[in-house]
């Protein structure tokens, strides 16, 4: 189910809120769990077993680790659990690639008539598995206590507000709130406000720009204008789609008394690639830092090892997004190279660039790299890069000009302002009177109305990060 859909807003969510508010405190987690499982099963009930299986493995491992004292046995149990969880993720993510790119072309004779039915990825599997791994590792490290109650743990694991596309909420973030959390007007009001902001980001900006990005990436020979417009539209679509989802997730969490970590912090105002990664998909960045980069030695090793570690972490980040094409891996490697370059520049005393130039270079890189991320295959990405260099002409193609509407231009302008909002806010000449501030804080109500109207008119569209 999608947050930005009528079935969620007009059916699931009201029923959930009713049941949740009527549930006694002791049964709130059970209500949350039951509704979360329904939420997950909505698209494909058969995949619910994957979620339950991962939950059981992680919960059981946590209990086992809590009871064991022998260090070797604890390590063995942790290793088995991590291998099982990562193996499940690898199975769903990479089997298609291995079969279609290696086994079928090279290992099976052509005349065998071998056909492979593509494995369907259980929705949100990447997020579900990362969460589970972080939990067992944290219990092993002793940074969190193992959760003894299955319902509480399963409710955390399945919590519909963050189940499918993050933010990657670690158990430590909600450990206390799983047993004691407020549910009052103030939290519900504040959570609703944040939810409405996310809904507006997703529906008003991301969904409006989506057809434009799709059209540009569908061109066999995009012109320079098409290719840059496509990269820009997609970059904005992705930000507002994913950040919108995250805001809705955090808002729902807040309504229920949870405090989820932020996932985005105006990444398109970044002046370096490192800053970009401190602002973009922050929970994935911190997950990779804590569970991959630091175990690899982090920044406390020889410089060449730091560069290798950086490349490795970014390559893993790329692979985590998918393996249906090599593009994700290349995208990760590109970001790794950019980070290494930045480090080398700084360590070798490269001059500090003026803010505007640093921002320009960073954004040029980020938006150029999005082409690899969005293109379904290398050939499409290559055609877009050729287009960006003007090898297929310069003006807008007829296909793109046809679908470009005033609505798109207005939305792109809105996206630019919203993406750079912290800069505008800082420059506001004088503070508004209190009453005006309080009234302006209600703007998400207007956003919700517009978003609801657009949803009713267009229908729901899934979030981009659902595919990961």
């Amino acid at each position, binding site marked *: 189910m999608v947050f930005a859909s009528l079935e969620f807003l007009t059916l699931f969510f009201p029923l959930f809120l009713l049941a949740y508010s009527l549930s006694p405190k002791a049964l709130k987690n059970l209500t949350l769990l039951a509704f979360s499982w329904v939420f997950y099963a909505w698209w494909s009930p058969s995949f619910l077993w994957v979620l339950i299986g991962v939950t059981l493995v992680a919960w059981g491992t946590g209990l086992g680790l809590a009871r064991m004292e022998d260090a070797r046995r604890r390590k063995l149990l942790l290793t088995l659990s991590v291998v099982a969880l990562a193996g499940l993720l690898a199975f769903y993510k990479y089997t298609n690639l291995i079969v279609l790119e290696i086994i079928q072309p090279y290992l099976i004779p052509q005349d065998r008539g071998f056909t492979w039915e593509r494995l369907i990825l259980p929705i949100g599997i990447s997020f579900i598995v990362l969460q589970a791994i972080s939990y067992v590792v944290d219990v092993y490290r002793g940074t969190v206590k193992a959760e003894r109650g299955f319902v509480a743990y399963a409710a955390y694991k399945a919590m519909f507000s963050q189940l499918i596309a993050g933010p990657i909420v670690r158990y430590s973030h909600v450990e206390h709130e799983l047993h004691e959390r407020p549910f009052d007007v103030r939290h519900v009001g504040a959570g609703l406000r944040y939810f409405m902001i996310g809904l507006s980001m997703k529906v008003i900006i991301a969904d409006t720009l989506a057809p434009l990005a799709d059209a540009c990436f569908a061109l066999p020979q995009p012109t320079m204008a098409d290719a840059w417009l496509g990269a820009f539209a997609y970059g904005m679509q992705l930000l507002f789609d994913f950040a919108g989802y995250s805001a809705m997730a955090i808002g729902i969490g807040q309504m229920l008394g949870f405090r989820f970590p932020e996932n985005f912090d105006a990444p398109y105002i970044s002046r370096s690639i490192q800053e970009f990664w401190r602002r973009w998909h922050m929970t994935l960045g911190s997950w990779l830092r804590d569970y991959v980069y630091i175990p690899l030695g982090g920044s406390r090793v020889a410089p060449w090892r730091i560069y290798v570690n950086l490349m490795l972490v970014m390559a893993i980040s790329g692979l985590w997004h998918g393996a249906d094409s090599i593009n994700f891996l290349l995208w990760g490697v590109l970001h790794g190279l950019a980070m290494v370059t930045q480090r080398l520049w700084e360590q070798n005393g490269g001059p500090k660039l003026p803010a505007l130039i640093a921002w320009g270079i960073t954004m040029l890189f980020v938006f150029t790299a999005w082409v690899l991320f969005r293109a379904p295959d290398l050939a499409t990405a290559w055609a877009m890069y050729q287009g960006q260099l003007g090898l297929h002409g310069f003006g807008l193609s007829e296909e793109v000009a*046809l679908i470009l509407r005033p609505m798109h231009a207005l939305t792109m302008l809105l996206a630019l302002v*919203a993406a750079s909002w912290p800069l505008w806010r800082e420059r506001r000449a004088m503070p508004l009177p209190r009453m005006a501030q309080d009234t302006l804080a209600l703007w998400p109500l207007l956003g919700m109305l517009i978003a609801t109207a657009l949803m*009713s008119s267009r229908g729901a569209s899934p979030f981009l990060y659902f595919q990961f």
Partner: protein
Amino acid sequence: MSQEIHNELIRKPWQAWAFIGAFGTLLLGFGASNLLAWRDGGLEKTTETGWSGFSEGKPMQALAEDLRTTPLADWIGQRQREFGWLALHDTGPRVHQGCTGWLFLHDELKVQPRAESNAAIRADIAIRLQRQLAERGTRLLIALVPDKSRIEQDQLCELRRPSRLEPRYDAWLETLRGAGVPVVDLRPALLEVRQRAGAAYDRSDTHWSIEGAKAAAAAMAASARDLGYAPGTPVRIEYEASEPRPRWGDLVRLAGLDGLPEHLRPAPDQVPALSFSAQASESGSISADALFGDAPNERVALVGTSFSRNAHFADFLSQALATEAGNLAKDGGGFALSMAELLEQDIKQGSPTPWVIWEITERALQEPLQAIDHDLTKQ
């Protein structure tokens, strides 16, 4: 999006209540609308689907579709589209405005993925089908309906028709004629109407105007006669036309503007109402709406799309052929749907229809292929 927004706690309780109140009102409204839709049988797809396909999530998909058509969702969606039109003259993603008041369907301007290959495969299907039908004793005549944006090019103004679409009409025509399949080129007849009457298509409709339909029908009938068609007992079909009245076509509806007050909508077409009557020249009168197969002549079946169901095209065709053609065309039938139904009907009845006129829209040629397209030659 930033930490600050998340932590921006609502300072006053009335703010929290404002959010809760607004959200609650919206939920109550939608809840009531959903209940009404359920009571009035509006959740058709959900009811039809039942629990079948549960493991693949089919009932949930059906419910999602139904919820989008509940009265409140429909009302809100309509207002959104109207606002877009009034504020920006935006006609939504499915309709484009050319010169003022001239609306065009997006689908006929869209360059489809694998467009040329799809058209080539469809040409191959049509050629094989024509041969199969000929073996069964059915004569097939194909009529290719050009895009509105091809014939009414003068009304495109700033709207650009992609140049990749230019060759698709000629290319298909040549392929079929090269294989000996009779195809009617409707362009000369429609261009002549445009020149004479100002337009061969309605401004606010996807389809041809009454004049356009009449000319297209005459061109098809002439081709059928060239192929040897002759009515056994000619039927005289006549019509009377009322004074033209304003009529808003399907593109206004598709743009979601049909709920606006008339003066705020795009300009209407002026269309007379026609009433047809049929008389057999020798054997007495025949009702104008005689069912397919009732007429004593060699049966003529018309298959195709909404073009055959608009602007009295089928009546004009019957008039031009001097027989009552059975109209099996389907709205939204695309390339194959109504032809598939005719073939199935022929098989059931055990007697092939002697004459089949197959109206195909130009845009349907390049649309993504479907299983039903391939199935045409398997029946």
